């Protein structure tokens, strides 16, 4: 994995004379684009503390004028936190189990494909990788019918299993790229010591694959956490609703008041932003690993 972290090595290459004007221009472009990305967030947080009159007033954009002149904390106080907490909990359970299932399945499959020699292994691998291209919409109708037939609708499993399946292709891809880095001599040594295939998998491959766990988990996380289509169709009771659907239906109840909408979406965003601030390097590396190895 030396290559992966190479992107963060200090830069030996710096802007030379002649490139200076362009360099300044580039920095300006970057600053502008960063503002375009950050400003909506700033605006979201400030308007969550305002009433409509303040939000809609022109000429109040940047600090300090953009800050609320009266702080409407009641936007936050009035929220139904027990529902939001339920949605959050459901999202955590669904996402965690989906990631766990797809990760275990991916590691096992990756071991069978990359470490045991058999004729069709490449073909099977290619078949799994097709999964990256298959749109989730493809299984919406049939999986809905299957779930309805077995009475699985409106349960967490009706989301967990499809999410696990959709995360699988990418997880196998990432697992493959990690398993290649584990020397085959280790397997052979273990076989000589009398280990079975299963013994090698659990005692050698799994422990050495642990660094890939976070990469696979982070890559699958975003997909599962923000999924809206299956979540809005398969689960109808608020008891099992996940965060995106919960936020959508909850904000739908305040059509006129913007402040509380801002408060809901701010609260829904904060855990993600905090996690990102803490783990930004790891998160970025995971996305790079996932895409580049493909």
């Amino acid at each position, binding site marked *: 994995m030396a290559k992966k972290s190479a992107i963060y090595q200090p830069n030996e*290459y710096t802007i030379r004379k002649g490139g200076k004007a362009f360099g300044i221009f580039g920095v300006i472009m970057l600053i502008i684009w960063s503002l375009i990305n950050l400003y909506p967030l700033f605006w979201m947080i400030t308007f969550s503390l305002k009433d409509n009159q303040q939000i809609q007033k022109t000429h109040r954009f940047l600090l300090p004028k953009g800050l609320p002149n009266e702080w409407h904390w009641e936007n936050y106080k009035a929220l139904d936190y027990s529902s939001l907490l339920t949605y959050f909990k459901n999202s955590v359970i669904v996402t965690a189990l989906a990631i766990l299932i797809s990760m275990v399945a991916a590691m096992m499959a990756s071991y069978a494909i990359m470490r*045991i020699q058999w004729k069709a292994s490449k073909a099977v691998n290619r078949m799994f990788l097709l999964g990256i291209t*298959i749109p989730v919409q493809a299984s919406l109708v049939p*999986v809905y019918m299957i779930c309805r037939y077995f009475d699985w609708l409106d349960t967490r499993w009706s989301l967990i299993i499809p999410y696990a399946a959709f995360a699988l292709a990418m997880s196998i891809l990432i697992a493959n790229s990690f398993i290649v880095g584990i020397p085959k001599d280790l397997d052979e040594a273990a076989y000589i010591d009398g280990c079975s295939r299963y013994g090698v998998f659990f005692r050698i491959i799994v422990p050495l694959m642990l660094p890939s766990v976070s990469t696979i988990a982070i890559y699958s996380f*975003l997909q599962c956490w923000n999924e809206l289509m299956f979540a809005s169709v398969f689960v109808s009771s608020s008891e099992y609703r996940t965060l995106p659907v919960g936020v959508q239906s909850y904000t739908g109840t305040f059509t006129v008041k913007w402040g509380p909408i801002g408060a809901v979406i701010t609260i829904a965003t904060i855990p993600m932003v905090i996690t990102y601030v803490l783990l930004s390097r790891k998160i970025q590396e995971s996305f790079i690993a996932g895409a580049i190895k493909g």
Partner: protein
Amino acid sequence: MRKVGNMKHRSASDTISIIVFLIPAVLLFCVILIAPMVMSAYYSFFDWKGLGEAKFIGLSNYKELFTSELTPFPSALKNVFILAGLSVFLQLPISLGLALILGRGIKGERFFLSVNFIPVLISTVVIAMLWKIMYQPKGLFNNLLRITGILKEGDSNILFLADGPKGHLLGSVIAPMLWQYVGYHMLLMYAGVKNVSPELREAAMIDGATPWQVDRYIVIPSMKPVIKVCVIFSVTGSLKSYDLPALLAGMRSVTAAFPSTMLMNQMFKANRYGMGSAIAVLLILMCFAFALLINYIFREKDE
């Protein structure tokens, strides 16, 4: 017992372990992805309400998709191609430009990289609500247009979310989708830029190449694999897009229809499972076709 160094030897126990290790993945894959694709293809030839008897109607669902006024599929196709086109020819060049600037090594590299990746992580529901409010007649965009003087005293506010031929709905749905993923592609391309060895750049600079020439003739050509991944992601991502169209335009809009919103509309509003399946089949075919096409285009240039 296994013999030393005889890894290629296949025994019965190996066959069993291959099966055991593959079972979870194959089950998930077949039940949730492969079987449903086959089922979708099958039901797309039927007129079926989901319950009761299904009536075989051949290709009528497909024919209706392209000819009937009731199902705005041509409009959905047009919209999705506009999105894919803008994504490849507007969003990716912006990402590439930013990645190249970042890759030249400037102060605050990490900061810019991190900040520009934030929209990727924010839930599409949150983005949709946020943009919905920004689009309001008295929201952020109209206020900005007033301050900059683009909207004059007497002008009325722009109704960004107004549907209909004179509305801006389609553009308003596409804009946040393009905005959200610039940072994602920028991150991937930045990794590609960083993969170019500094020595190569140095050598070109000593030979008198300007930074622009270095980017043009050394960095960009070596980034082809990354650019290919980005193009595939952005095209198939466009084809699959559902969240923002559904949240900003709703399921019934004709001018801002997308294949996925149409699919949901046919399935759960009109209860037409056969029609929904036909749309799903077309989506699958388009995703595969474009993935193959993009692979082909890039392969040719490699050689």
